[in-house]
């Protein structure tokens, strides 16, 4: 639930409850005050009647005006008590219930007991109370509308720096080495947040850069000793007195050296791809590139007597030539290297997909690990350096292609979706 929605819900419910409660309070307070007023009026009338009786020693005429009625009733028993009361009577003239306030009090005129009833219409009071209730309701509605407008326009604007920060964070990518573009805000909470996020991202960027520089430097630093070993071996094998046994040992060193150089170069390549050092883009005919690569692998394919099935549609991509070359080279190279004698390779290319599948004696690979660095299936010979597919994955990531491994019908399949 959004913070705003949650806050509004609490806010509005509380506001409505308070407003309704205050409406009730008004209602009772005003009703009490107005009835008191009415009672005071009735008391004035009572006094007038009492004065009249005292002066004239007779009852005044019962009278009935629009909102006041005076009546007398003789009663033989006990004199009635003085009471105030409200009552509702249906009026035939006005065709509605009429509420009125009444005072009953006893008088004695010429030895006879009478009960005097004075009643005044309570209509005006009721009207006032109704008006107050309506007003309260109107205020509630206006308040809700105002809150809605504030939320809709003002709060969204207020929260914008937060939304921008969030968007930037979501798009934050270490390998781009970009700095966050945060919106300046005059609101303390947001500027604090932005400051903290900026400090954090700078530190992460620095750490990442240091790590990358380390990998790159380490790989570079290894090149020179490798070159020295290589050159010493090249000189050493010129010696005519070397025996066959010694030559075999040297061959072992050569092979290990080749592997080490290869590994080092792959690591450097990975770092360079991560460092975005291949940022030149050009239009590349992928179908042509695949055909060229197949020609390059011609001898390997022939020696294993592989059957190649191709279905290549004309496809051009906007990407780095060197990287696409490596991508195709690694995928095809693997399909050939890990194939069995007289096995099959099928290559399908259309503008949305490149899929390379091959038969192999190696069973299905672990899809979760296949692109991890130095992952090798137990059945794999040690001739690969375990980085080929990591490089492919990295190249795909840089171009936002997705690559998927699958195993069906005894065929390993790598699909690149452009």
């Amino acid at each position: 639930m959004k913070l705003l929605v949650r806050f509004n819900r609490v806010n509005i419910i509380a506001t409505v409850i308070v407003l309704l409660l205050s409406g009730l309070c008004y209602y009772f307070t005003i009703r009490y005050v107005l009835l008191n007023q009415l009672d005071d009026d009735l008391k004035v009338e009572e006094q007038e009647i009492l004065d009249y009786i005292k002066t004239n020693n007779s009852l005044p005429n019962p009278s009935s005006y629009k909102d006041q009625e005076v009546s007398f009733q003789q009663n033989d028993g006990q004199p009635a008590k003085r009471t105030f009361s409200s009552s509702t009577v249906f009026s035939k003239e006005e065709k509605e219930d009429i509420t009125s306030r009444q005072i009953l009090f006893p008088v004695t005129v010429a030895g006879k007991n009478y009960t005097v009833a004075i009643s005044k219409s309570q209509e005006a009071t009721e009207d006032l109370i109704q008006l107050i209730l309506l007003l309260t309701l109107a205020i509630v509605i206006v308040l809700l509308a105002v809150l809605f407008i504030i939320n809709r326009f003002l709060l969204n604007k207020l929260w914008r720096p937060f939304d921008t920060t969030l968007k930037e964070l979501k798009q934050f990518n270490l390998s781009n080495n970009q700095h966050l573009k945060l919106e300046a805000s005059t609101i303390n909470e947001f500027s604090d947040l932005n400051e903290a996020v900026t400090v954090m991202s700078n530190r992460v960027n620095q750490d990442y850069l240091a790590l990358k520089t380390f990998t790159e430097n380490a790989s570079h630093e290894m090149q020179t000793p490798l070159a020295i070993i290589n050159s010493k071996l090249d000189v050493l094998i010129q010696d005519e007195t070397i025996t066959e046994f010694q030559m075999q040992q040297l061959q072992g060193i050569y092979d290990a050296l080749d592997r080490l150089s290869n590994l080092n170069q792959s690591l450097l390549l990975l770092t360079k791809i991560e460092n975005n050092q291949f940022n030149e883009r050009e239009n590349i005919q992928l179908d042509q590139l695949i055909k060229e690569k197949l020609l390059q692998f011609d001898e390997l394919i022939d020696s294993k007597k592989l059957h190649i099935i191709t279905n290549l549609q004309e496809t051009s991509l906007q990407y780095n030539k060197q990287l696409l070359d490596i991508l195709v080279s690694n995928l095809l190279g693997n399909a050939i290297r890990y194939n069995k004698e007289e096995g099959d390779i099928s290559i399908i290319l259309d503008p949305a997909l490149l899929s390379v599948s091959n038969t192999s004696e190696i069973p299905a690979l672990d899809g979760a690990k296949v692109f991890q660095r130095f992952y090798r299936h137990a059945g794999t010979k040690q001739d690969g350096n375990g980085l080929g597919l990591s490089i492919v994955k990295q190249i795909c990531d840089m171009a936002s292609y997705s690559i998927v491994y699958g195993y069906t019908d005894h065929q390993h399949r790598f699909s690149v979706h452009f």
Partner: protein
Amino acid sequence: MKILIIEDEKALSESIVTYLKGEDYICETASAFNTALEKTESYDYDCILLDITLPGGSGMEILKNLKANNKMDGVLIISAKNSLDDRVAGLKSGADDYLSKPFHLSELSARIAAIIRRKNFEGSNMVKCSGIHIDTQARSVFVNSNPLELTKKEYELLLYFVTNKGRVISKNAIAEHLWGDDMAGNYDFIYTHIKNLRKKLSAAAGMDHIRSVYGMGYKFTGA
């Protein structure tokens, strides 16, 4: 032929000197920026091997200085920084070739020979060795003046052998020269190509110039 080796790693430049001495090359070395700059300014060389990272300065500066002084020395950059940018920058600045470390000395020797061939104006597209004439411009081979038909790989192999004649070349160096990194560790194809080249060459020249050294390398011998 005079060659200047500008390389701060003594161990590496020693090996290079030892290997190249077999040819009729006269090698000099410089291991720091200043001495290298002095030598290139004072003398002319047929080919300069130039390391980019040097104590005291960048090899690129030496290259720029050479070009500014209109020197015709051939320049082969040998760099540990195997990046496309460096390669492009080096070649743009007038270097003739670029070789990244680590490399085989036989490869280095072949590249130097190619640069000197190109630099030489005396119709030196021809590489000659005991009756075998290789026209590197037309990519054709003549044995005792008779044309010899070779496949592309066989031609490259022969040229590689001839530019490294008298020296043992490891299988690893041959594989890398012919296929780059794509076929690393796969020597079967070398056997096939060498077998075919030997057969054709023996038939044409009447003798087998290529000698196998304990199955780990090959040596091209002259007459």
